[in-house]
């Protein structure tokens, strides 16, 4: 029971998940009132399918953001991994997907090692990877799409075969979420990630290794982005260099709706997944109402703003009073050139213990 509680609690309160579940319930109730056919297994299945993709990416990005870092390369990396998976499909679909995800994880390892060793802020560093990986995606495809061979399409179909409201795809995401969530909550490595994200100065004083958590966070964000890209491209039967254009901002939005905040040190995988469920339920509801993509975009923006206002009002949004130092996310505190002038590094922790 204690273990279960700590799944919810580190850095956040139980009300955090409660509020999100209420919001999720409201979304479902409202759309069901608007059209009673909304609350069906079909819709639930499609929401879970969409969440399987977004959630997978958000898990990795979320861990990076809990560590106080940010990874801007996830969408480009997902595109590269998708192309790799399709091109490697001769090995069999499952090995191809695993291999593509591992290659992405390897890139995450490289990126995390660079960020940790150079002590460079990760926003600045990963913006280059955002471009470079897109370039690699174009290189791999010669600027066109790669198609899955026809004899593999049946196998790809099995990944989204429906079992009640689940599919192998969504079960993979649920599995990853459970493993990462438990690891984050219970393992020493997980604690270290919270520690360096939440209170960096204190974590140094407490002897928390500073590089390992960053590297683990980036390996995870690389792995989940790669896995999501590979799975989605295989399921779609093709990989394209232009794939996933909105994924980066959407995954950051999902992580923020999931209550991680930009400052790190708080949030849980469970919250992030619920955040994704809220977004995808909202989108599914709007589609069910026959609304266009623009309305969906508008609603996603409004949802983010709503969540931020609520958190801000309850003093959890990392708010500051006028004139106070902005609590600096860790990926900004490094390399600022002037970081020493912005108050002690520890003051950034003041904003976000809710």
């Amino acid at each position, binding site marked *: 029971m204690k273990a279960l509680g700590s799944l919810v609690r580190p850095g956040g309160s139980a009300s955090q998940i409660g509020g999100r579940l209420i919001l999720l319930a409201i979304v479902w109730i409202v759309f069901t009132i608007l059209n009673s056919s909304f609350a069906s297994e079909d819709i639930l299945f499609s929401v879970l399918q969409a969440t399987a993709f977004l959630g997978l990416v958000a898990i990795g990005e979320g861990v990076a953001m809990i560590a106080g870092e940010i990874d801007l390369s996830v969408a480009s990396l997902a595109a590269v991994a998708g192309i790799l998976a399709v091109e490697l499909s001769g090995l069999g679909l499952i090995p191809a997907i695993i291999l593509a995800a591992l290659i992405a994880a390897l890139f995450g390892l490289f990126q995390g090692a660079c960020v940790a060793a150079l002590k460079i802020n990760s926003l600045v560093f990963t913006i280059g990877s955002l471009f470079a990986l897109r370039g690699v995606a174009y*290189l791999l495809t010669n600027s066109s799409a790669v198609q899955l061979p026809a004899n593999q399409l049946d196998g790809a179909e099995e990944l989204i075969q429906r079992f009640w409201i689940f599919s192998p795809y969504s079960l993979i995401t649920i599995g990853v979420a459970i493993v990462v969530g438990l690891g984050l909550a219970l393992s020493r490595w997980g604690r270290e990630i919270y520690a360096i994200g939440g209170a960096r100065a204190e974590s140094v004083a407490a002897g928390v290794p500073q590089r390992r958590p960053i590297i683990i966070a980036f390996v995870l964000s690389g792995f989940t982005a790669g896995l999501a890209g590979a799975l989605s491209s295989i399921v779609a039967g093709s990989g394209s260099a232009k794939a996933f254009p909105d994924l980066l901002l959407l995954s950051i939005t999902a992580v923020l709706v999931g209550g991680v905040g930009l400052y790190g040190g708080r949030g849980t995988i469970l919250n992030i997944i619920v955040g994704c469920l809220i977004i995808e339920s909202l989108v599914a509801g709007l589609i069910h109402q026959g609304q266009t993509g623009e309305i969906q975009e508008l609603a996603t923006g409004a949802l983010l703003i709503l969540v931020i206002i609520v958190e801000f009002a309850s003093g959890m949004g990392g708010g500051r009073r006028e004139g106070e130092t902005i609590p600096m996310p860790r990926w900004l505190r490094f390399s600022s*050139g002037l970081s020493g002038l912005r108050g002690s590094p520890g003051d950034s922790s003041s904003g976000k213990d809710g």
Partner: protein
Amino acid sequence: MQIEATSDAVAAPSRFQSAQQAVLAWRPAPESVILLVLLAALVLGSALTTKDFFSAENARSIIRVASLTGIVAVGLTFVILSGNLISLSVEQTAAMCGIVFATFLHDGWAVVPALAATFGIAAALGVIQGGVIALGANPVIVTLGAGAAIGGLTGLITGGLGVTTGPTSLGWLGHSKLLGTTMPVYVFILVTILATVFLNRRRAGRELMLVGSNRHTAKASGIRVWRTSVIALTLASVGCAIVAILNVTQFERAENAQFEGLTFDALAAILVGGAAISGGRGSPLRSAIGAIFIATLGNLMVLHNYSFGVRMTIQGVIVVIAVTIFHLLQRRWEKR
């Protein structure tokens, strides 16, 4: 050391008795030197290795390519300099400005009211976002949410379709040339000059720089910190509007997804210009040169017939290298 570090912001222009003294005492920021060295090395290397590179015609084409990203980068520089990190609503703001401007013209408005209304809308978007940030919200989150909302609204205006204006009396902005180069280049130069003057010579600009360098000192000095957020976000929005309008005059058409990738293109230019993302270090001119640097690199690779994928990969790697160099050097200066 601390005062030294903020000298970008507090060096008073009136310190010097004469212009000559000022020139002699002028010490460029180390980042500027590095940036110019990098650019010079790139130009020299390209000129030596590449036929057709070192010509006036090619230089014009580089600046032409750099101008649109550059204008946005110059506007966005204020957001970074003021310590407000980045704005993620750049693409959507530009798209909305383009759509509303084209819609006004399409509906038969005269050019002047259409321009005024477009800039008014851009400024309003900036003021709203800046105002929310000034209340204490995080700039990244606010602009991320606002970007989605603005993008959605833009889609609603057009129903997802583009807007065609037909020929307008502003056509000269998009089509004619002066001294062999297109008008956006002059707008780019003008915007950079105006931004530099604002930052260095206007009270509000210097306050903005100080807030970015050291929020506590700025607050203690009686500077209205909230105002700098509003100004910074508004100027960034106006930069987007300028680019959007230039685009409409050139293509006589505006589309929703026209500016995809603009945010990160502009941010890359700013970072290659050596700006510190935590604020207080950087300048509009450096961001402009950053945009030109990236455009020069792209041009060089085009001349070598590299494919789009190779160009983008190399550009990304160069951005990583540039920001790493700046980062390592800045850390070294900090330790001194």
